[in-house]
């Protein structure tokens, strides 16, 4: 078990910058997820942690020890790969024993035939076998030890890969999208098992995924990465409710958060799509801002009026208790999506005029360049961004 600290990591592939100065510290025993769209650099960061890639700048500390330039072997990390990377020609037992053999047996003892004749080899090998068996049993794959990976199902291979990582009790577990090759049902099951494993082992886990649901359910904290930058590191619910950045807000949540451009009319009033919303903004009149409104922050209104947006319905998705209503707003070039309670919005039809109210306290405010504008109330009466700066 160990803490991990990442400081100012940069990585370029030729002219493309994959990581632009990423800093992050992970506490001992924490489950941290690197979440981001594909190509955001999260896998590269994980591989730099493992020592499989070398960063161009910055440093990595594992257990307060700088490991830059150390080969993976000396970092005391284990990794579970997306493809599992099991050795196809070895049995499950040999696959799991390999990390121990490489560490405990000398090069001479590992030689075929000759190695076996050396005095200590047999004893160490027997020890390894016992540990492999114990680990395999704890994962429920004890009966598969003699098989080869080709004879296993996807879920079983996944367990073997986890077992190979577990068997030598590493300080840090690194997992690179370990569930993405499984079908949906198995993925949910394995997700629970990984969570349980983390609680049982208590190790430090760094987990890479592009799947929000995995990140949200597994993690103590989620680190959201976009385009090689770390945008926010926070507990799962905070990432959703209280994003620091427009890109985080847009990446998290389904359906995607609605982004509406607005202009501050006067203190406490924002003009959006032809309506005036009563939203507390400490800003001078005429400032341009963006309002992020999640679909569930809307509610059905019987008629127009102050604080109500009016548009025409374009599409309706029935979700059971909810409806996802896609509607047009005057002056907005994309459709806006509202999640409305089905019983409260009985007779909505395509083409019809729709009135929706907005809960002001659920509206997220951003500057036009994407920074979060926290209202004074939330930010403890300390204005985060002087609003004058953002006035055009």
């Amino acid at each position: 078990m160990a803490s991990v600290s990442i400081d100012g990591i940069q990585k370029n592939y030729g002219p493309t910058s994959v990581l632009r100065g990423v800093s992050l510290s992970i506490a001992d025993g924490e489950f941290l997820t690197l979440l981001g769209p594909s190509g955001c650099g999260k896998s590269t960061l994980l591989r730099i942690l493992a020592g499989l890639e070398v960063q161009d700048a910055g440093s990595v500390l594992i257990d307060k020890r700088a490991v830059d330039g150390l080969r993976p072997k000396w970092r005391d990390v284990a990794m579970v790969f997306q493809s599992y990377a099991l050795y196809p020609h070895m049995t499950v037992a040999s696959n799991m024993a390999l990390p121990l053999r490489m560490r405990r047996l000398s090069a001479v003892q590992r030689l075929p035939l000759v190695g076996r004749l050396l005095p200590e080899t047999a004893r160490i090998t027997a020890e390894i076998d016992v540990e492999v068996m114990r680990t395999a049993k704890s994962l429920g794959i004890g009966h598969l030890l003699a098989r080869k990976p080709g004879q296993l199902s996807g879920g079983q291979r996944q367990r073997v890969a986890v077992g190979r990582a577990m068997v030598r009790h590493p300080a840090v577990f690194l997992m690179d999208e370990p569930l993405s090759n499984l079908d949906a049902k198995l993925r949910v099951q394995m997700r629970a098992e990984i969570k349980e494993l983390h609680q049982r082992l208590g190790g430090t886990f760094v987990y890479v995924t592009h799947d929000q649901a995995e990140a949200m359910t597994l993690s103590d904290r989620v680190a959201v990465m976009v385009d090689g930058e770390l945008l926010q590191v926070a507990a799962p619910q905070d990432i959703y409710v209280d994003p620091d950045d427009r890109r985080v807000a847009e990446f998290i949540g389904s359906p995607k958060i609605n982004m509406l451009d607005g202009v501050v009319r006067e203190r406490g009033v924002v003009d959006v799509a032809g309506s005036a919303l009563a939203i507390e903004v400490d800003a001078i009149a005429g400032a341009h801002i963006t309002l992020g409104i999640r679909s569930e922050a809307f509610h059905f209104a019987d008629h127009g009026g102050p604080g109500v947006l009016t548009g025409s319905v374009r599409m309706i998705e029935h979700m059971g208790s909810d409806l996802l209503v896609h509607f047009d707003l005057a002056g907005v070039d994309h459709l806006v999506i509202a999640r409305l309670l089905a019983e409260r919005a009985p007779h909505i039809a395509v083409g019809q005029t729709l009135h929706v109210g907005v809960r002001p306290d659920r509206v997220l405010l951003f500057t036009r360049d994407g920074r979060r504008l926290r209202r004074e109330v939330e930010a403890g009466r300390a204005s985060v961004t002087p609003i004058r700066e953002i006035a055009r």
Partner: protein
Amino acid sequence: MSAFKSARRLSLPTTILRHAVLLCTGALILAPFVWMVSLSIKPASEIFRVSFSFWPERFYGIENYTKALTEVPLPRYMGNGVLVCAIILVLQILVCTPCAYVLAKLRFPGRDLLFSMVLIGLLLPHQVLSLPLFILSYQLDILNTYAALIFPYVISPFGIFLFRQFFKTIPDDVVHAARLDGLSELAIVWRIMLPMALPALIAFSIFSVVGHWNDLFWPLIAVRDQSLMPPPLGIMVFKNEEAGNDYGPLMAASTLVVMPLIIAFLAAQKWFVEGMTGGAVK
């Protein structure tokens, strides 16, 4: 993830060892080529002097190469090679492509029979067939003509096989769409399938041309007339006539025969490797 491929660094001694070994084996491999070129630019007096240097004291290349091109019908040999290879390739493509298409995309009675005929053809080494083919060309009275050089290779089972494999990777929907657009089956073969199979076409063309440019066995049987000989046969005759006394021009002629393929190979290495191993790898 291929960007990560081979990110591993070798240690400096390992790197040096790698280059040292590869340069040594490379030098051994190149020795015959170097020796050939070296002799081709030396005068006879230097060739027969017992001492070796790769670069001549007196550059005699022009004389040797002129002699190779004028005293022997080498240009004729090369022309024959080009002609025969080109005709064979065109005929093979004309015959093999529709058959490959049929095997890959149509369902009809006898398809398995047809495919097993192709497989049998693929299995047979061509030299085994030389005796009956010789008799056949004798019966047709085409021995000692271009036709004799060409006709055994009008069809290439390997070509059918290769194209079939490639056509199978093209989605059936492409064929359906083409039919809906009113193309005939033959038009689908030439206007849709073959252009889409360009990589296979290039690979096969290289395989075919290299094979027939280098072939000595069948031309040796099929033609006697010097004016019909392709390069390998021509150069062998040249060597036997000169009886090894006029090394300079002989080496110059060898260099000229080997050169076209080597230049093409260096220009399109990847395609050559693919073409000449494609059948084996797949």
